[in-house]
């Protein structure tokens, strides 16, 4: 269970939010929405532990994520605006390296299989620089097919994706939730994901 207690975050002198409380349990989805600059990405960066809140704490199963360190990072997957895709590497190499970094090494066959399921058949051995924005996004998202982490923190996963890909992602999200996973994501699009409970967090 992911809980946030009395969270406060500011950017320079500007206070983004204060006194924020929520909890996400197994099988639940939290959609974070709000206008540009309302602190969605800042919140997600706090939740994954990249930055430290000004006040309050974030707990995983009752223990502060600062204390958990590597144990928390091994149950969590964060996908940011930047997918971590290297232009000079092929789609397969990109996927294998990002999976290895996330602590689950996969071989070439598994990587090819995951990319095919993401609809990138025939593009597996192309360098990422010749792929389109949407295809690069698919390469980054392919990691979700391979990882076995419980908590997914996704920052605008649907940008640059076409309708078919959005359906695919929806299926992946539902699969993770049905396995007892948790998802915190931001999106500007309407998305009907079947979940045990869907929380809406609106930042202003």
């Amino acid at each position, binding site marked *: 269970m992911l809980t946030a207690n009395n969270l406060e975050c500011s950017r320079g002198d500007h206070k983004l939010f204060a006194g924020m409380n929520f909890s996400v349990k197994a099988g639940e989805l939290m959609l974070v929405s709000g206008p540009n600059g309302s602190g969605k990405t800042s919140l997600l960066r706090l939740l*994954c*532990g*990249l*930055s*430290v809140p000004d006040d309050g704490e974030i707990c995983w199963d009752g223990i502060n994520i600062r204390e958990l360190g*590597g*144990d928390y*990072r*091994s149950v*969590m997957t*964060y996908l*940011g*605006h*930047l*997918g*971590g*895709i*290297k*232009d*000079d*590497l092929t789609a397969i*190499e990109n996927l294998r*390296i*990002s999976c*290895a*970094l*996330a*602590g689950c*090494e996969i071989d070439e066959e598994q990587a090819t299989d995951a990319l095919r399921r993401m609809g990138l058949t025939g593009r597996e051995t192309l*360098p990422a620089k010749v792929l389109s924005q949407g295809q690069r996004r698919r390469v980054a998202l392919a990691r979700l097919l391979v990882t076995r982490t419980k908590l997914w923190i996704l920052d605008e996963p649907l940008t640059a994706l076409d309708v078919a890909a959005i359906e695919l992602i929806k299926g992946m999200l539902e699969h993770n939730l049905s396995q007892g996973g948790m998802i915190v994501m931001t999106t500007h699009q309407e998305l009907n994901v079947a979940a045990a409970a869907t929380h809406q967090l609106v930042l202003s």
Partner: protein
Amino acid sequence: MILWIIKRDLLLAMRRRSDVLTTLFFFIIVVSLFPLGVGPEMNMLRMMAPGVVWVAALLASMLALGRMFSSDYVDGTLEQMLLSPVSLSGLVMGKALSHWLVTGVPLVLMAPVLGIQYDLPVEALMVLTLSLLLGTPVLSLVGAIGAALTLGLRGGGVLVSLLVLPLYIPVLIFGAGAVEASTAGMGFDAHLSLLGAFLLVSLVFSPWATAASLRISMA
């Protein structure tokens, strides 16, 4: 895990050979300019050789420092590294080692060839190569700290030289000193031992300091 990072960085270096060659050619050209400028004064050249080669090696190693983390920072890979369950110090060690393999090892291999221009005796050439072999990994490891601290700053390139060059001074003194001691007919073991000690200390402390700097820069 370290192997994954080294493999990836070497692969990236192979796909962008110009970056690797820039460092090497910079080193070759700087070292070769001195004999042309000073003229064929054998005694003078022999005397200045260790200093010139070592200073050129420092600057060449600096040249590629900026790229050590910045490309990973720009495309988001660094975020993933910080969020990796494996230790960040280990990943950083891998990055520093691949920086050395790409920028340090070619310099070590070229040094004896360039030393001939300075009329160095065979023993001095060997000592020069050996001192570079021990010293250049220190440059990469210490440089990593500076590169991590200046990540994402405007004018980071200048700042990193100001931060890192003073820390390179001991390596320069004992590296060049080893060669001078050998040409003067004295023992050079002490110099090399000290360089080895620098290498061990930086192997232990630099990854840890670099990881801490990265966390500060990314927060």
